């Protein structure tokens, strides 16, 4: 009883934590990685299931039969496009109007941050064309079928199929939502311009004409990419901007109609493993899972649908793949799948919200929910927590190390950690992160104005400049020492840095698991292992100093390699033989300026500060320990700064630097 309030037991507990810390850390890290790999295996993956009642059964009879029409429209579109060299706006308007849609256009332009390397252009301008199929009710909800068109003449089959579907849909009376058929120019740039104009916001500095026709709140969107008259399989892409994912029900819907139509559907280009009993199935799903994690961690939209997700519109991209398989499907099969999906979405009473928004997909019909994949990241972050706990114990029970539990602690632990002294390095590293976020864009303009460099080079150079400036960071943060116990400084700083890192990683993991997990897997070992090392100055503590020459102070530079250096708690105190001058490393005596002088030494990381009396030793000037230059500051603040930049990018609503909107090559 009273486990934490009893000093004896508390000390025992602390000892246990300190002793078992390293194995626990290793175990936790390994457990995290192993858990992650185990996500692809059946006990952790579940079968997907439709949660939304309104889309529950697949009792929809698809009647689309406009395959020939789709092909001829696609041919016409391609021909007109070749002739005009751009999107054939007039032809599209005419065709959409002839099938009975309300047609509108939107022109947009955007100055590119970098010139397009193939065309050497800074200004991109284009025209989006969209037609609205109206229905009986008052245009409060709508669905979107979008076809992004790039600079080359791909995707014309998608336009053809879309128009044929529009003609078919127009003749039906069961629509309860408006359907918007959207053809965007310049791929994602056009999609973003249209979305911004539709929601009447401007977050990427796009110039565009206002939309004349609207159709209420968009409930779901499907982007279509087809470049051949026949397909062997349909690939579905879900990863959106900053790793956002659509509601799982939308994917389930697609999968349902894949099965119903007998279509071959792939995820990340991989077929669904058939055999889960042997090792091949799970191995294939591990591959799929890793591919998805990499895609999601990159944060860039994996198709035009990715931009819809930012506006809380559930969306996915369907890509027709034409490979060398024997059996091929024509456009009717794809059209029927789309018709089925739209008819199901038409039944929705509320926007999709029933199923999961956070999931990983090891296969098309299997998913891992957030409750099951978060432990993997949790184990990794536990390492940081354990390390922080260890440091905390050391700071508060410093005397109670396992080897000298019997003796009295040499230092009375009356002095707490000077938290105020941590403010400066924390602020510096925060500022560093902010600079990394802002400066490349600012610096790019400055650099191109004053130096003969290209735009793209300017960004790289600015980044390099900031990283170079970052190397000077220890100079600015080395003042973190307490007067009494020199090691307490870096310990406190590392403690704060570890907790900060863990919090930030946890935040990133919540919003974008893949990015958070990959960052944690790479950063956690470095952050946990880092200790002050390299050039180091050991302060002669007062009672060690008793036998030193009275007229001066000396610092010893411990030149032993980091691995062989004494453990931190050892370095806190005089080494066992510290009272003999011979124990100092010979030839490394550095005279320090007079205490009253208070001038900083030019030597790196070394500073002499105005002496002030230590407790109980009035008038005796002594040095602050010059801060273990790379210690508390070390790489950790830099890591934190990098991390902060990543976090800012994730949380920023504008989210994407304009680069992510560039036309895909």
């Amino acid at each position: 009883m009273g486990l934490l309030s009893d000093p004896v037991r508390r000390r025992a507990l602390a000892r246990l934590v300190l002793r078992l810390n390293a194995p626990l850390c290793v175990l936790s890290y390994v457990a995290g990685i192993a858990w992650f790999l185990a996500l692809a295996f059946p006990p952790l993956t579940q079968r997907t299931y439709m949660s939304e009642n309104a889309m529950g059964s697949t009792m929809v009879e698809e009647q689309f039969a406009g395959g020939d029409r789709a092909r001829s429209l696609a041919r016409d579109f391609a021909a007109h496009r070749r002739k005009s060299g751009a999107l054939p706006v007039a032809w599209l308007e005419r065709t959409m109007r002839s099938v009975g849609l309300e047609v509108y256009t939107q022109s947009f332009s955007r100055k590119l941050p970098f010139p397009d390397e193939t065309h050497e252009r800074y200004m991109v301008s284009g025209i989006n064309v969209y037609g609205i199929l109206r229905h009986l009710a008052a245009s409060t909800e709508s669905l979107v079928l979008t076809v992004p068109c790039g600079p080359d003449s791909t995707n014309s089959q998608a336009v053809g199929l879309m128009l044929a579907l529009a003609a078919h849909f127009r003749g039906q009376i069961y629509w309860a939502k408006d359907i918007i058929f959207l053809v965007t120019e310049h791929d994602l740039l056009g999609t973003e311009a249209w979305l911004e104009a539709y929601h009447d916001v401007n977050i990427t500095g796009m110039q565009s004409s206002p939309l004349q026709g609207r159709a209420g709140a968009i409930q779901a969107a499907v982007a279509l990419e087809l470049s051949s008259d026949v397909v062997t399989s349909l690939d579905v892409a879900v990863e959106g901007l900053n790793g956002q994912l659509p509601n799982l029900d939308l994917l389930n819907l697609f999968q349902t109609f894949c099965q119903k139509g007998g279509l071959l559907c792939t995820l990340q280009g991989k077929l669904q493993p058939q055999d889960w009993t042997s090792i091949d199935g799970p191995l294939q799903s591990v591959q799929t899972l890793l591919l998805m994690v990499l895609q999601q961690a990159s944060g860039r939209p994996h198709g035009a649908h990715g931009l819809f997700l930012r506006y809380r519109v559930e969306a996915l991209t369907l890509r027709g793949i034409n490979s060398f398989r024997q059996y091929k499907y024509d456009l009717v099969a794809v059209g029927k799948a789309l018709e089925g999906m739209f008819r199901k979405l038409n039944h929705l009473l509320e926007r999709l919200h029933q199923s999961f928004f956070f999931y990983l997909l090891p296969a098309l019909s299997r998913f891992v929910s957030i409750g099951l994949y978060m432990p993997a990241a949790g184990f990794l972050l536990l390492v940081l927590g354990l390390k922080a706990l260890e440091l905390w114990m050391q700071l508060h029970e410093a005397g109670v190390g396992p080897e000298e539990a019997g003796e009295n602690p040499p230092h009375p632990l009356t002095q707490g950690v000077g938290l105020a002294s941590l403010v400066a390095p924390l602020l510096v590293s925060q500022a560093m992160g902010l600079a990394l976020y802002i400066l490349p864009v600012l610096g790019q303009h400055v650099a191109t104005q004053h130096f003969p460099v290209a735009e793209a080079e300017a960004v790289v150079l600015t980044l390099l400049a900031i990283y170079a400036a970052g190397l000077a960071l220890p100079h600015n943060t080395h003042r973190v020492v307490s007067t009494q116990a020199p090691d307490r400084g870096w310990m406190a700083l590392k403690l704060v840095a570890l907790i900060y890192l863990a919090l930030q990683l946890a935040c990133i993991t919540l919003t974008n698991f893949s990015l958070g997990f990959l960052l944690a897997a790479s950063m956690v070992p470095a952050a946990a292992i880092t200790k002050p090392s390299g050039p180091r100055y050991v302060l002669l503590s007062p009672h060690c100093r008793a036998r030193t020459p009275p007229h001066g102070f000396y610092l010893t530079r411990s030149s032993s390699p980091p691995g062989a250096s004494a453990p931190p708690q050892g370095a806190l105190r005089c080494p066992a033989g510290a009272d003999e001058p011979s124990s100092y490393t010979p030839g490394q005596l550095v005279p320090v300026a007079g205490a009253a002088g208070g001038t900083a030494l030019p030597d790196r990381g070394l500073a002499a500060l105005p002496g002030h009396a230590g407790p109980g030793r009035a008038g005796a000037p002594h040095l602050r320990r010059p801060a273990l230059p790379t210690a508390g500051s070390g790489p950790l603040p830099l890591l934190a700064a990098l991390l902060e930049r990543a976090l800012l990018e994730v949380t920023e609503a504008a989210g994407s630097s304009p680069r992510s909107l560039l036309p895909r090559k």
Partner: protein
Amino acid sequence: MAAPVRIFLLVLLLLGPGGWGRAEPPRDSLREELVITPLPSGDVAATFQFRTCWEWVSHYRLFPKALGQLISKYSLRELHLSLTQGFWRTRYWGTPFLQAPSGAELWAWFQDTVTDVDESWKELSNVLSGIFCASLNFIDSTNTVTPTASFKPLGLANGTDHSFLRYAVLPREVVCTENLTPWKKLLPCSSKAGLSVLLKADRLFHTSYHSQAVHIRPVCRNARCTSVSWELRQTLSVVFDAFVTGQGKKDWSLFRMFSRTLTEPCPLASESRVYVDVTSYGQDNETLEVYPPPLTTYQDVILGTRKTYAVYDLLDAAVVSNSRSLNIQLKWKRPPENGYIHYQPAQDRMQPHLLEMLIQLPASSITKVSIQFERALLKWTEYTPDPNHGFYVSPSVLSALVPSVVAAKPGDWEESPLFNSLFPVSDSSSYFVRLYTEPLLVSLPTPDFSMPYNVVCLTCTVVAVCYGSFYNLLTRTFQIEEPRKGGLVKRLANLIRRARGVPPL
């Protein structure tokens, strides 16, 4: 002897009203009218109007009793109710005769003898809810406003004190056959004869736009306005989709649209007409099966007696298409000087926002009125059963007096077709339109009402309970206390036991 006399008297009584009716002009009258307008987009609009006039003192002959009692009980001066499914697309269909907002709209003027207008309004909406099978009982103070500039009385009015006006819109109301049936029952011929045989529900609701309305107002009985009668107008507008109904072809017939044909007029009606707009078409490229066949045409109007049609026609062609082709953006930095702005801020859960602006629009311009709002969390009981559907914002209303391009001939108001005589016109150089915007669906932040939400709540509770006991267990020190020697009672008991020779407690 007595029996034949009684029978004779009975017969006299039965014949009585008819006899009076023949003797003097009937006090109650019914006019019915159907206007069929081919729209520029290829769709076809059909507007039914049934007008019943009623003298206050007479019996209920044609006028529905349910509404007549309503007027006297709640001291109504005017009542306008519309139930609409769909949205009139002015850009493609031209200016409507009478537009209504999507959902249900109700506005009423009360007599100035009414003391508690809000109470009467509440009761009125509840009664109407029962009559029309609509959810009008959801009208309460949170969605009722009192406009000060728009919604002037359409009928005879002595004063316009706006405190006797109430206006409410329910954008979410879905209109279906259960609303059409009671509406049809108000007609004197029901759906047995006359134009109303065309009102077949399964066709009327397969359209792009369906709006049915009831307007009650006091009107003059004659040109000199010596006496006042109550006018009940029942209007029903539908727009048939050319692509769905006509398979993409532009020709149409009554049978194809309504799957019925007209066989006989309503015997109670004093006038029963079908107007067809053939202005924008050549001759005879439609097949039109109507009874009686078109006998009188005046200029471009079939089966019309008076020419009031050209006004609309020319406006459609010239005014509408001109403004459609121009596209100059104009945003108001601030409202113009001679404007009138009335803003009544909302009180949470009490009354809605009301913003009225009287502005003069420059020609060929686009005016954009945007309202910034914040999304807030509601109280958890205030969420609808389908919170993720979103919340509706009522459509806004635009009332305008548009100058005519061609001055209309001042005609006899009583004799003009019904579609032209709903809104009173002060002079012939301009006409009145009232347009509505689409309702808006706004999704508010919604708590997760699903199973994980409950799990989180439950888990947090359990953790909180466990945390308390564990913390207690870890931090509190327990000591064993020596039992005390015993109280007075025990000592006394031991004394007695010792006296008895029994071992003490």
